Structure formats: C-alpha cells, structure tokens
C-alpha cells in the first residue's frame, strides 16, 4: 500500500514536471536588478515587471543584488540556472561599459546572455551648477575647454552612468576636467545644487525636477528629439554637439541557453507591457524613451549590446 502510494506520488510528480515544462512559466520568475532598490533601473524594472506579471500569469519577483557598479548582480544572473526562472534587467553600464572598466569581469555581455528585449532608456542631460558662467551649450563647451584644469565634474562613482557619460562628454569636447567621485547620484547632485562642483551628466529622472525648479541649469539633452518632460531643453544636435548621443538604456537578459520558448514568452510579455497605455504613461512621466517596434526584438538587442561594448571600450580605456 505504502509502495503504491509512493508510486502514485512519483507519477503525479512526473506529470507535474512535464506539464510545467510545456507551460512556461509555472512558477514566479525572479528578475535580478543589479542595483539598490529605488534607482532608475529598479523603478523601470518594477513598472514593466508589474505588467509582465499579468501577461505571464506568474509574479515577476524583483531581487536587488547591488554591488560593484552592477557587475555583482549581473555575474550572478550569468551563472544562474538557464531554466527561464531567473532573468535580469541589465543596463548601459553592466552590458556596455563594464568590460572596459573591469578587467577581471566574470561575464561577457555579448556571449553569456540570451537577449530578451530593450525595456526603456532614460536620456542623459548635460547639467551644471546654477552659477555656471554660460548660457548655451556652445559657451559651455568653450568655457570647459578653456578652464578644464579648474573645473570639477561630479559623478556617482566608477561604473555609474554619470561616470561613463561624463568621460564621454569630456572626450568629445576635448577637455579633461577633474572628476570628483561620489557614492551615488544623491550626494553628487547635492553638491552640484550647493555649487561645490561645477557640472555633471546624468539621467533625466534624477535631474528633471532640479532643472524645473532652477536649482541647476541644463544645457542639452543627448537624444535625437527633445523630451516632452523638459521641452525647453535643446537636443545636443540643435545645440551644436551632435556626436554626443547617449542614453542610459535598460534591457532584459536571460542566462545563456535559456530556451527559445521562454525568451519568446518573456519578449512577448515585455512588448505587451510597453504597449499598455497606463504602463507607457508611467514610464513617459519619468522622462523615459520607449523603444520602437523594431527595437523590441531579442535580435536587435543582441546586436545593440555588441555595438555598445565596442563604443565604450576605447573611450573608457583612454580615460583610465
């Protein structure tokens, strides 16, 4: 009797196993966010993840694994089981700049992941303290070039978006201002508002309210078109620095070898989230830029990551 019961149990377990293999997802999906809760990537992951949970019929659980500019969490995602139940939200730093910044990186953004799809990007703005003596981007770049040794560029720590984009700006205008490292956007922005440092580059969601309140000034936004969130800020193209095009993109990845079926289902759920009116509005309110239809495929993301790694490599290595 006991044996029969065991057999029945085993059969049931087997049946359940095969069913779950057919109907992905059969349990909650963990999405690793390689940054502390509350930052732009985390916020975007939570907004998108919430709608994706509804499509998938399973909860997407956000797991914040912060550390080493996001590479700790990304390494963990790269090494996670490729059963489709662990995915991650990577971004410009972890999947673009990291190989140039961390010589001992334990993952390869182009090889160790199955791209799922681009989620949303936050445009980068060039901002300066209120008293910065320039009225437009042209006079800003002239002033930076002429006074590079005196000026201070704040950033949120090595590997952060403001660090990479700040170096990129310096290399494009041909000046090497002194880089002042902070431990996060908050402290850096605080010292920009109080005028301890001169300028920085950062994501729109971090600086938009300060710009609107006039506590700091914005010279340009590094996107092809102006942002509806800050319609008065010209684009870098309009203001005369067209080559400075950069946004802190966020995208979902699964560990290498995750089944095509799981990736397709996750990509479909991501597309549905990005097509949903309420979700779109919440993202656009942050000043985020949403990917166009052809930018939403896994293949596009794969090619994009390769391009990004190539783009950041020379810029960041030159600054090291």
């Amino acid at each position, binding site marked *: 009797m006991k044996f029969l019961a065991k057999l029945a149990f085993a059969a049931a377990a087997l049946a359940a196993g095969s069913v779950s293999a057919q109907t992905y997802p059969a349990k909650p999906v963990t999405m690793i966010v390689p940054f502390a809760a509350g930052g732009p990537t985390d916020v975007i992951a939570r907004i998108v993840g919430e709608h994706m949970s509804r499509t998938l019929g399973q909860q997407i659980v956000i797991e*914040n*694994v912060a*550390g*080493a500019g996001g590479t700790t969490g990304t390494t963990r995602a790269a090494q996670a089981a490729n059963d489709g139940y662990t995915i991650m939200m990577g971004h410009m730093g972890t999947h673009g700049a990291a190989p140039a910044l961390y010589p001992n990186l334990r993952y390869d953004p182009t090889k160790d992941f199955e791209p799922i799809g681009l989620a949303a990007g936050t445009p980068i703005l060039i901002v300066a303290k209120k008293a910065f003596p320039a009225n437009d981007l042209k006079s800003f770049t002239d002033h930076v070039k002429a006074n590079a040794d005196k000026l*201070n560029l704040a950033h949120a720590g090595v590997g952060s978006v403001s660090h990479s984009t700040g170096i990129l700006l310096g290399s494009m205008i041909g000046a090497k201002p*002194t880089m002042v490292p902070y431990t996060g956007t908050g402290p850096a922005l*605080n010292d920009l508002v109080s005028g301890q440092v001169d300028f920085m580059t950062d994501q729109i969601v971090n600086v938009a*309210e300060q710009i609107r309140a006039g506590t700091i000034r914005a010279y340009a936004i590094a996107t092809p078109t102006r942002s509806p969130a800050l319609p008065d800020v010209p684009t870098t193209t309009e203001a005369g620095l067209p080559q400075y095009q950069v946004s802190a993109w966020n995208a979902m990845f699964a560990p290498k070898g995750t089944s095509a079926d799981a990736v397709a289902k996750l990509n479909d759920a991501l597309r549905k989230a990005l097509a949903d009116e309420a979700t779109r509005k919440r993202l656009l309110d*942050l000043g985020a830029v949403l990917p166009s239809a052809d930018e939403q495929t896994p293949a596009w993301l794969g090619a994009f990551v390769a391009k990004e790694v190539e783009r950041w490599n020379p810029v960041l290595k030159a600054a090291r």
Partner: protein
Amino acid sequence: MDLISNLELGFSVALSFNNIALCFIGCLVGTLIGVLPGVGPIATIAMLLPITFGIDPTGALIMLAGIYYGAQYGGSTTAILVNIPGEATSVVTVLDGHQMAKQGRPGVALGMAAIASFFAGTVATLVIAALGAPLTKLAQLFGPAEYFSLMVMGLVFAMVLARGSLVKAFAMIVMGLLLSTIGTDLETGEPRLTFGIENLSDGIEFAVLAMGVFGFAEIIRNLENPEARDVVRGSIGRLLPNKEDFKQAALPIVRGTGIGAALGILPGNGAVLGPFASYSIEKKLAKDPRRFGRGAIEGVAGPEAANNAGAQTAFIPLLTLGIPPNAVMALMVGAMTIHGIIPGPQVMTKNPQLFWGMIASMWIGNLMLLIINLPLVGLWARLLKVPYRLLFPAILLFCCIGIYSINNSVEQVIMTAFFGFFGYALIKFGFEPAPMLLGFVLGKLMEEKLRQALILSRGNFMTFVERPVSGGLLLVAVVLVVAALLPAIRKSREEVFTE
C-alpha cells in the same frame, strides 16, 4: 499663520480613515521588522513596494514612512533585549540598554526608549514643518571639507564610548577605520583588500559586522557557562519608568533631541553621529560617568531621542530639496517615482497635500508607535524568560534571515559568522566593539569626504582650516583631544575614560 493652515491641511489628509489605517499598518510592520534583528527597513520597503501600487501616492508614502520610523523603534527593542544593534544608530542603545535589561529593568529601558523617541519625534515633526526650508539652506553650507571635519570630531567622541582603557578604545577605532577601507576604491574603481572575494567588493555591510561582533559573539560567550543567564530569570521588575527615572532622563532627552535633529538635517547621513554625540555629552555631563556602560538610564534616553529626532529630520533634505540623504531615503525617492511623483525642490508647492500630509502623519505615526509599543513592553520583557536553548537558535535564525535579506547573499551570512568569532575574541581580550563600529561607520564617510575635499582643493590640505565651518569643527576636535591628553587634567581624563 501659514504654518497652522498648512498643518491643518496636513492633518485633514493624514486623518482620513485610509491614511490612518495605512499609517498604523506601516508602524506595526515597521516595529515588527525592527525587532527582528537584521531585517532592516530597506529590505522591507523594497519587498512591500509592489503592494503599494494600488494605493494613492500619499497613502503609500505614509505607510512606507511608518515602516521606516517604526523600524527605528523596533530596533531599540532588540538592542536592549538581546544586545544586537540592527543599525548604526542603535549601537549606543546596546551599551546601557542591555545592561539595564540584565539588571532586571528591561521594562524601564524599553519604556524610556519609547517615551524619549516619542518626545523627539514630536519636536522633530514641528522642526520639519516650521523650519524645513530655511534649515536646508544652512545644510547646503556643508561641503566635503566640512563633513570631513565633522567626522573627525565624531571620532573623538568614539573614544569616550569606551568603558575600558583609552589605548584599547583607540586601537578599536583604528581597527574600525581599517575595516572600512575594504572595498572598491572610490576614485579608481579598483578593489582593495578584497582578496578576490566578490562579496567584499562593496566593503563589509554594517549589519554583518554589527550582528557578528555583538549578537553572534554574545551568544557564543553565553554558551561558555550554561549557568549564567544574561537576562534576569526571576522578576522582570517595573514595566514603566517611574518619577525618579523621568527626572534623570528629562534633560538628556531634550539635549538628545536637539543634537539628533541638527545632525539629521545634514544631507550626508549625519544622523548616524547623533546617538554617539548624545551619549558622549551625557557621559561628560554626568556627575558620576562611571555609571555609563552599567545601565545608566541617561545613556538610553539621550541617544534614543537623538536617534529618532535624526531619523525624522533626515526627511528634510528629501522633502525640501528632493535629494535623499541616505539609502532609506533613496528608496523613498524610488517609491515616489514609481507613484509618478518625482521629488524635487517643488514638491512642497506642487503637491502640498502629499508634503503636509506626510509631515502630519509623522506625528500621528509617533503617537501610534507609543501606543503600540508601551503595551508590548511587557510582552517583549517576558521574551527574556524564554529558555536559552530556544532563544539562541531563534535569534541566530532571525539574524541569518535578516542578513540574507540585505542583498540576497549567502556569503554575507557566512561573513557574519566569521565576525561572530572575531567578536568573541575581542570580548576575551577585553576590547570594546562599540568604538570599532563607530570607527567603521565614520571611516567610510571620512575617506569619501577627505578625498572629495582634496580633489576639489587640488591637494591643498589648508582647505580644512581655511573654510570657517570646517576649521571651527576641527578646533572643537583638537580642544577635546587636548583636554583628554593634557597631563594636568589626567585625573579627570581617567574618570571619563576608565571604569
């Protein structure tokens, strides 16, 4: 009066049935997670964020804020009862609070902590409402150089924390400073002293160190002789402080509130200094400083008031500037952002209902915490009667869960175990862990601010003296050190620093 009409608006928002209920849930959850060692407000708020999606932003923030200051209350309970500081700010409460519990006065310690926190919370709420905006401007005077000098002054306080010899206290501060240098170099991004262990790349987590050297080490020490009970076996004693206790604690509470509120405003996590500063000042002012570290009620009341006042005024940079001063506030920014309110300097004018509603709810939350906590004092105190063989595994289990929840990492739990043995060795050799923890907390901030200040001054050390605020703070630190070292007043130094 603007203030009164604003507060009226605030209370009309905060007193709606929904918001009162949310505030209560937040405070209750906060208290509970605060009591669980290691499960901090950051992990809890992050976990509960999705639940708030369906609630309006004001209600959601009221609840999340309730979790935050509820956790501060709950944290003192664990510090007093089982000698585990969950956060940097409750390290000081451990010193005398746990001694009081050992002497059979856990109820008095818990009750006094709750009352001191309530008083401080009430005053801090008024400070935020009346002076938030002008104080922000004042805090903006603090650049990296000023912070560095403030931290130097804080380190001098650390020496006063010690119960034993000055040399040992100094050694422990330096030990803490050294431990804080582990991790990624701020400027170059190179890993320092990590021995290739990836989990050390962002340094040692505070809770890992604190729970190891206090909680785990204490348990190991207690296992040494099964006879000795750390906590009183027989009567628990009075549950609430009496008139005499209040008389002793009244002035420390007022001073602690002032110190904590002032340091909390600084947008660089100055709040951590509050309880340490309050404790040092009380010890200096006391007629008999030897009582400190042996269950002095002033050593609980003052720092607890400072802790709560600082926790509350830490909202000022967030509410008036939109800039988060610490990790919890950064998470609050994230919560606001998810709810479509991007905090900035204009939150007050753009979302007056949210702004004033939150301020009003802070006071209501503090009142609720008092109401939740005072009846619980008896229950918590009775927890001490649980036999060790049940209590110890439970504490260890909760500690492990708490540490795991910080960054979802098993390695950090193992590291805590390591620091447990390390802490046990410290106890055996007669070293105090408290100065080490302060050195550790201040070390990170000090290095950051020192390097920022020197980068900004292009390597000129005079920047610390030339800037008036910074120079003034350093002067105070020098005076304190000289007072401690001058042979002429050696006698009084010994009174202060040695048992």
